[in-house]
């Protein structure tokens, strides 16, 4: 029989450990503290919060590698629109539970990073005032084109336009993705590489099989052409 009320003391020990630990281990603190910023750089109005890429990452303890906020679109190279992964298939638009994604497909095809001519999104808007950060768009995307960003400094004096993120706001490089979610990005790249390798191996195998089949067929044909006279002989 355990001590009566012992569970309460156990719980209190846990909270005490957190209470004391938060004073000594900075990596326990998961919230952002702006006190590291010099006074003259303190935000004056909500709209003036720093928005440069990576600014929020300066203090490594403030945004963890596992924080997710709103989606972003990935591209592979330096020119975003030349290497965009999204092919405007509109699966995410259809799956989005609060219907916050709006996509307009391009009329003509254009070469993407894979070197294949593909459609691309002429318009790709996400209304972050509607988005519920469920990450379902990320789950359903077959092209690994949409992933979660961890940027949270999105306050704006413009209630409608400021919260509607356009395609060009959403485009982020794969390097940025590696920067904010290293583990996830590495795993994703590995999976993409593996899938690519498996695809190529399959292609190769298929080609090999086709070649073999052709050879066998040729052989069979040859045998057939050789054997035909025998049969005919037998028949005679």
């Amino acid at each position, binding site marked *: *029989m355990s001590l009566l009320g012992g569970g309460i003391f156990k719980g209190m020990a846990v909270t*005490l450990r957190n209470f004391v630990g938060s004073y000594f281990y900075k990596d326990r603190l998961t919230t952002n503290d702006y006190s590291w910023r010099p*006074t003259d750089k303190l935000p004056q109005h909500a709209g003036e919060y720093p928005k440069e890429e990576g600014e929020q990452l300066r203090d490594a303890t403030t945004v963890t590698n596992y924080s997710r906020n709103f989606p972003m679109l990935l591209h592979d190279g330096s020119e975003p629109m030349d290497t965009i992964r999204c092919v405007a298939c509109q699966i995410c638009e259809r799956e989005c539970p609060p219907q916050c994604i709006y996509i307009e497909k391009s009329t003509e095809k254009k070469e993407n990073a894979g070197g294949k001519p593909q459609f691309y999104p002429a318009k790709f808007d996400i209304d972050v005032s509607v988005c519920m950060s469920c990450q379902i768009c990320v789950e359903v995307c077959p092209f690994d084109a949409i992933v979660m960003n961890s940027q949270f400094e999105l306050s704006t004096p413009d209630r409608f336009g400021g919260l509607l993120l356009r395609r060009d706001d959403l485009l982020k490089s794969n390097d940025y993705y590696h920067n904010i979610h290293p583990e996830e990005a590495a795993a994703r790249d590995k999976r993409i590489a593996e899938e690519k390798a498996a695809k190529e191996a399959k292609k190769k195998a298929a080609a090999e099989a086709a070649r073999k089949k052709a050879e066998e067929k040729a052989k069979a044909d040859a045998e057939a052409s050789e054997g035909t006279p025998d049969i005919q002989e037998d028949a005679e």
Partner: protein
Amino acid sequence: MSLELIRDILVATVPLLLIFPTLFAFTTWLERKALARIQNRIGPNKVGVPLTRYGGRFSLFGLGQPMADGIKMLFKENIVPRDADRLFHLLAPILALIPAMLVLCFLPIDFPWINNIQDSVKAFMLDGAVIFFFAITGLNTLAVFMAGWASRNKYSLLGGMRAIAQMVSYEIPLVLSAVIVVMMVGSLNAAEIANAQAGWNWFVFTPWGLAAFIIFFIAALAETNRSPFDLPEAESEIIAGYFTEYSGFKFALFFLGEYIAMFAISGLAVTLFLGGGAGPGVAALPWLSVIWFLVKIFALIAVMIWLRGTLPRLRVDQLMGFAWKFLLPLSILNIFIAGSALHLLAGDRLADLDEKQPILRQLMEGANPLVVAGLWIGALLILYVAANGLNQLSRAKVRPREYKYAE
């Protein structure tokens, strides 16, 4: 009414009206900081000295936060629902604050200025101070239900009904555990109760006193609607309970009343069980007793905050079961044990006792140390076994949930 009497009344009450709201402001800051740290956050750390840039240049760990909150509350719009009972909607927060403020007078804190005034103004010298304390605290229930009813809102009414059920239920173990102390002192006078514990003779160091203190503390948590008994204002269930429809300064009054009630009931716990102003150095420096009293109150409040950061909220049936099936039998048993123990200690000396002196101290003088030790250990054992048994009996008979799809 003579001028002197008016002066004495002001001297007795005005400092209380200044000191405790100040402490309240400090406590809200302390609570937010402590809860934040428990959850690995930082808590308020921006608002500091006003009129420096954003109040942030000298932020002083965010100590200016309560002031900013107060100013914000003052300037907020006072919204009264269209169908609300306007009079009672207005009266409820006032009625919540007044009893809480009133009972502060019953705390025997030896402020340096208190010795110069007439005895008739000192509320804690009243012969029935402890009874009065509970009687006035009971008014709070009325205020809470008034707020719930007058708001004409289902969540408010639910909160008010929960509050009534909870406060009435927990009032009983609260009073019954205070009875133990009255038995040991033989007086209801708060000052005499505190004096009876001078030195280290705190009643919490007796087995029945310890049990009574724990019961009292649990019941006090429920009386002041503190977590884990915060069902009347359960945010995740009924929005804010009885003060759902309150805004602006009326809300602030409720908030203030709640914290003042916390101070009052902690102060009563200190008076009854933790020796009042007793502590090291009091004999040499009498003003230290004020410090000790406040330190003890704050220790209890710190535990309340700590518990709030630790425990989840109870279910309604668990709450009622705990009061009626566990605390009530245990406190009645505790009274029985305390009575038997005092009787055994007294032996045939019962007739010689001086009514004016604390009973326990008279009994302890000249008692056989072996008998005392036996009584202490025996009482502790009986109480522990009884509590364990009651715990087994009072639990709701619910089988552990069988998961169909999880795990």
